[in-house]
C-alpha cells in the first residue's frame, strides 16, 4: 500500500464520517468546506446551487470567498467557471486563470487573487443541483485523486442538500396537515369522541391522511376519514382540497352516498392522485349511522360486550381511479355504549404481513382497550405501532354513544335545537332501565320542559351547557337538570306552563334556584301500575 492511498482513505473518512449527519445544513457545509480546503491545501471553496427554474446558480456557502454568499452572487448556467461545470456536468480544472480561455464572471476571483480552480458538479439522481469548487491563490496543478476526492465531497454535499430540502418540505407538509385537522372535536350530547393523527416517523413521508367532524342541520353530525396517496406537500395540499369539498357537499347533501359520489366526480375533474375516504352521518335522535366508502379500510363497530365487527356491506373504488363511479351507502343503528372506529391504512398495514392479519390485530387490540374513547384511541395507536417506526401516517377517529347504565351523565348545549336530542337520550335511558312507553314519554316531556326553561330563562346567547344526570334507585328514577344561570320570571300570558306540565307527568318535581344556577329534580317510579 502506498502512502498516498492511506492518506486518501483517511481523507474520505473525514468527509463521510456519520457524526456529520447530525449537523444542520449550514454547519455541515461550513465543516465540509473547512475540511476539503485543508485536505486539498486549497485557499478557497464554495458551493453554488441551481435556483428554481434551472437557469441560474446562486452562492450558498463559501470559505475564503465569503463575500460571494453575502453579496448574493448568481450567474447563468453555461457562463463563467461554475456555470461551465454545471453545464457540462463534469469536473473542470483551471490551472492559471490569467491564461485560461474560460473567463470567470465572478469579480471576487480577481479581487482575492485566485489563480487556480477545480470545480465538480453536485448531482442527485442524474440531475445537477449545483457546483462545488476549490481555489488556490498560487498557480497549481490538480491531480486525478484531487478531483476524485472533491467529487466524494460533492456527492456528500448533494445528498445533504437534497435531504434537507425534503425535510423542510416534510415539515411544511406536516404543519399544513395539522392545520387542516380539527383542533378540538365538537361536544355533542350523548356522544363521546376522540381522534389521533400520527405523522410518519420519517418527516419526508408525512401528508395525506385526515379526519373531520362536521356539525350538520337536523340533529345530525358528519364524520370523515380519508387518505390521499403519496406524501409531502402535494399530498397534503390535495388532502386540503378534498377536505373542503366533503365539507361543502355534506352541508348541501343529506345522503352519504351522494356526498361520496359528488366527491368522486370532483376528484375525477382534479386529475390528481388516488385517495380513499369514508363519509358517515349519525342522527343524534336515533343513533342511526349511514355511511359510504370509497376504497377505504372498513369501519370497525365495537359492541358494548367487547365483541366487534367490520362493516363490509358496501363500498366503491378509491377516488380518482374509476371515472364516473357511483357509491351506495349502508346503515347501522348504534346501541348504547357502542363505538365506531374509523382509521387509515397506516394503522393496519405492515410490511411482510397480510392485511387480514392487521385487521385481526386491530380487532383484538380494540376489543381489549379501555372503553373511554380517549384512552381507547391511545391504547389502539400505541399498541399497533409498538416495535415499529411509523412508516405511513395514521389517523384514527372513535365515536361512541354513551352507556345507558343506571347512571347517565351528559351535557347538552343550551339551544332549542338540542331539545330533541335531550328527549332521545332520556327515552333511551328509561327504555334501557325497563321503563314503559308511558315512562319514556313522561320523562321525555318533563326533561324537555326543564331544559327549555333553562334555555329560555337562564342563559343569554352563548355556548352554555345544561347538565343532565339520571339515576335509578330501587325503581325510582330521578333526573336532574342543572344550569348555571339565573331564572328570570316567566314573561307573557302564555308562558310558565312548563312547570305544571312537568308536575303532571312526574311523581315529584322540585326546583332549587340559587345565584349559582338552578337544578330541577324530576322523580317518577318506573313501571308504576304495569
Amino acid at each position: 500500500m502506498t502512502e498516498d492511498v492511506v492518506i486518501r482513505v483517511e481523507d474520505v473518512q473525514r468527509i463521510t464520517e456519520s457524526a456529520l449527519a447530525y449537523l444542520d445544513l449550514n454547519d455541515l457545509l461550513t465543516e465540509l468546506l473547512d475540511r476539503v480546503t485543508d485536505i486539498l491545501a486549497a485557499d478557497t471553496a464554495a458551493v453554488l446551487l441551481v435556483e428554481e427554474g434551472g437557469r441560474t446558480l446562486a452562492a450558498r456557502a463559501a470559505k475564503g470567498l465569503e463575500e460571494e454568499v453575502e453579496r448574493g452572487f448568481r450567474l447563468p448556467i453555461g457562463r463563467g467557471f461554475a456555470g461551465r461545470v454545471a453545464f457540462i456536468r463534469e469536473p473542470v480544472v483551471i490551472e492559471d486563470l490569467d491564461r485560461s480561455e474560460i473567463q470567470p464572471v465572478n469579480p471576487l476571483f480577481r479581487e482575492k487573487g485566485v489563480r487556480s480552480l477545480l470545480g465538480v458538479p453536485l448531482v442527485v439522481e442524474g440531475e445537477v443541483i449545483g457546483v462545488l469548487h476549490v481555489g488556490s491563490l498560487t498557480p497549481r496543478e490538480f491531480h486525478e485523486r484531487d478531483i476524485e476526492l472533491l467529487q466524494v465531497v460533492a456527492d456528500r454535499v448533494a445528498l445533504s442538500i437534497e435531504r434537507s430540502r425534503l425535510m423542510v418540505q416534510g415539515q411544511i407538509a406536516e404543519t399544513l396537515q395539522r392545520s387542516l385537522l380539527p383542533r378540538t372535536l365538537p361536544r355533542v350530547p350523548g356522544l363521546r369522541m376522540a381522534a389521533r393523527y400520527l405523522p410518519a416517523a420519517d418527516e419526508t413521508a408525512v401528508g395525506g391522511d385526515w379526519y373531520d367532524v362536521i356539525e350538520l342541520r337536523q340533529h345530525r353530525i358528519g364524520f370523515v376519514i380519508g387518505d390521499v396517496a403519496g406524501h409531502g406537500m402535494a399530498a397534503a395540499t390535495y388532502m386540503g382540497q378534498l377536505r373542503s369539498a366533503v365539507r361543502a357537499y355534506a352541508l348541501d347533501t343529506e345522503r352519504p352516498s351522494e356526498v361520496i359520489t359528488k366527491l368522486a366526480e370532483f376528484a375525477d375533474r382534479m386529475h390528481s392522485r388516488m385517495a380513499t375516504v369514508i363519509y358517515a352521518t349519525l342522527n343524534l335522535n336515533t343513533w342511526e349511522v349511514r355511511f359510504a366508502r370509497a376504497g377505504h379500510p372498513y369501519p370497525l363497530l365495537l359492541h358494548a360486550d367487547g365483541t366487534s365487527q367490520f362493516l363490509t356491506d358496501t363500498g366503491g373504488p378509491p377516488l380518482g381511479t374509476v371515472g364516473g363511479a357511483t357509491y351506495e351507502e349502508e346503515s347501522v343503528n348504534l346501541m348504547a355504549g357502542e363505538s365506531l372506529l374509523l382509521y387509515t391504512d397506516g394503522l393496519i398495514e405492515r410490511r411482510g404481513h397480510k392485511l387480514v392479519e392487521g385487521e385481526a390485530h386491530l380487532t383484538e387490540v380494540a376489543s381489549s382497550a379501555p372503553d373511554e374513547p380517549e384512552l381507547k384511541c391511545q391504547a389502539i395507536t400505541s399498541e399497533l405501532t409498538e416495535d415499529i417506526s411509523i412508516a405511513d401516517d395514521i389517523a384514527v377517529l372513535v365515536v361512541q354513544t354513551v352507556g345507558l347504565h343506571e347512571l347517565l351523565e351528559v351535557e347538552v348545549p343550551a339551544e332549542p335545537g338540542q331539545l330533541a336530542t335531550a328527549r332521545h337520550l332520556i327515552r333511551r335511558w328509561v327504555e334501557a332501565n325497563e321503563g314503559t312507553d308511558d315512562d319514556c314519554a313522561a320523562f321525555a316531556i318533563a326533561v324537555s320542559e326543564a331544559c327549555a326553561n333553562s334555555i329560555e330563562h337562564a342563559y343569554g346567547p352563548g355556548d352554555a351547557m345544561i347538565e343532565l344526570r339520571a339515576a335509578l334507585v330501587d325503581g325510582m328514577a330521578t333526573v336532574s337538570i342543572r344550569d348555571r344561570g339565573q331564572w328570570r320570571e316567566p314573561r307573557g300570558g302564555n308562558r310558565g306552563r312548563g312547570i305544571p306540565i312537568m308536575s303532571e307527568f312526574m311523581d315529584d318535581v322540585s326546583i332549587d334556584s340559587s345565584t349559582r344556577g338552578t337544578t330541577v329534580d324530576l322523580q317518577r317510579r318506573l313501571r308504576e301500575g304495569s
Partner: protein
Amino acid sequence: MPELARLSLESQGDIELARVAGEVDASNVADLSQRLLAAVPNGARALVLDLSDTSYIDSSGISLIFDAAARLRNRNQELRLVVTPHSFVGEVLGAVSMERSVAIDAALDDALRAVGDSDPREPEAG
C-alpha cells in the same frame, strides 16, 4: 328529510285544514306558528288543526295553540283541534285544560262536521 315536524295545508271549502306530523318544541314552534297563521285567509270560517300524527308537543306548542285561538277569535274565526283520545298529545293538552279554551274532537270528520253545524258569525258563547 328528518325535519322535526312536517306541516301540510289544505282548503276544504271555507275551512282550512292543517296537519302537523312529528314533534313540536321550542326549536320549530316559531316557524310553524308563522306558516299556520299565514295559511288562514280572512274569508275562512275556521281552522282545523289536526294533531293525530303529532308524536310530541310541549309547552311551546301549547302556547302556539292558545295564541292561534286568540287571534282567530279576534277575527271571528273558529279553531278546532283533532286529537286522538288517550294519546300523549291528549295527555299534555289535558294537563293544561286546553278543552276549556279550544274545542277538541277525536277525529277529523267530527271536527269538519262541527264547523259545519256552528255559525261562525255568532260571537262565541264561551
